[in-house]
């Protein structure tokens, strides 16, 4: 998988896809569908080491570095979170640590899903974004070191 387009381009692409939906139901059905289609994480990774524990749902996240780019895989026990996670992976996976660290992820707000990143939504998604950036930072330090 090569990063054929920039993070911003993918964000814009998703924003455009969501602009086609008229109702919140359509949006959520799409997210649920994304969640169902996300390739499940191998059970060997579904352990505490990779778990980002939210209050209600759980998210597991792994990251691999290949030729200076970071590839993410993730899973969740709740399907809406999984759909949101799937979009984050689509946007961030395959990019360099710097690109990931610089990503503003404004598309989440533009598609009307910002509330899922709020502190009050203890679904682990905010922690997941932080963790993705942490991975990027760790790899950046490693590469420069």
């Amino acid at each position: 998988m090569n990063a054929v387009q920039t993070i911003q381009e993918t964000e814009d692409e998703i924003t455009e896809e969501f602009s086609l939906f008229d109702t919140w139901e359509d949006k959520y059905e799409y997210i649920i569908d994304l969640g169902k289609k996300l390739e499940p994480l191998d059970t060997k990774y579904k352990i505490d080491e990779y778990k980002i524990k939210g209050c209600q749902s759980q998210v597991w996240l792994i990251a691999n570095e290949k030729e200076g780019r970071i590839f993410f895989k993730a899973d969740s026990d709740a399907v809406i979170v999984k759909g949101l996670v799937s979009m984050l992976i689509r946007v961030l996976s395959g990019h360099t640590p710097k690109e990931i660290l610089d990503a503003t992820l404004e598309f989440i707000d533009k598609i009307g899903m910002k509330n899922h990143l709020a502190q009050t939504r203890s679904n682990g998604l905010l922690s997941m974004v932080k963790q993705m950036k942490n991975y990027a930072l760790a790899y950046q330090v490693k590469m420069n070191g």
Partner: protein
Amino acid sequence: MVSTDINIKKSKAFDVAEIRKKFPVLERKVKGRDLVYFDNAATAQKPQVVIDALVRYYHQYNANIHRGIHSLAEEATAAFEATRDTVKEFINARHREEIIFTRGVTEGINLVAATYGRQHIKEGDEIIITGMEHHSNIVPWQLVCEEKKAVLKIIPVDDNGDLVMDDFEKLITPKTKIVSIVHASNSLGTINPVKEIIEIAHRHNIVVLVDGAQSSVHLEIDVQDMDCDFFVISSHKVYGPTGVGVLYGKKELLEAMPPYMGGGEMIKEVTFEKTTYNDLPYKFEAGTPNIADTVAFKAALDFVNETGKENIRRHEEALTKYAMEQLSAIEGVRLIGTSKHKTSVVSFIVDGAHPQDMGILLDNYGIAVRTGHHCCQPLMNRFEIPGTVRASFAMYNTKEEVDELVKGVGKAIKMLK
């Protein structure tokens, strides 16, 4: 079966439409829809009379209490102490000084654990709680157990969500010093046989704390009849303000307990050599209390009394029964907590759907439910579920709102399938 419909709509003494008018928040919209508020077990909405009492205090007689000699201080003190009298009546305590104001149930339990608990628990002693406790009635005791090398024992819960009472007496040994039990479960609704538990415990000279967080709003509370040693309440679950609660304790126990916090108000005389403590209830009320919210708490209790607990209970029971019937008829829905003795809590899970997904979708329909483990992780583990969707009803909820929930659940399931 008597039609639930008739019970809900035609109670003469109780007009839910009139009641709803008294709760301003119920007029608001959520996501463009009429709010359906079914998170009452977390906190109840406030009637206008409570909001008014709160505002009136700050508008007209805000002052620090008990020591000032000016008029405002006298008025504030009188209002604050009037709440104590109303609480005393509300739970039928013997003495007004048995009513200690706290920040809520959590503080009440911590207070007892840190004073009575630390005073009486020795190495190897035992504390008994139930398998359906809120974390606030688990962790304070774990802290005591850790410090004193004592043991926490658990009364198990059966598949319906009832306590396995046969096991309770077997858990008691000469080392058992405290039993601390929830009156009504926040996640299942189960009403526990506290009188029976207390009777058994007292036969073995064990003191009993009853967590009334969920029961005090729904059930008639008579601490003398119940004969509990301690009883704790949170105002915000009884239509009152947040940040206020009550610890009831039998006078002789409270008198023998050491203070919880030191500071102003709780002392009689302070020298650098020795401090003598104030009398009850002030011994346990160090510092300036939450005066405004305590004052407004009285308005909430008066409001509940005027509406009539029995009327409220009948209304909520009918709603609960109706909701349980309707929800269990939906394919894939499984009720968690099917005790015969329940408060107005309906907890359920949906096959193949995470409670959180249900909660997110229901919120978009304007329906506020609680999803998750409800601060009862050990209980969720016992049922081997990550959590539940919980709808909990208050006096202002209606059958039509339950219908909205049932519709919403049906739609959410369809979306998630």
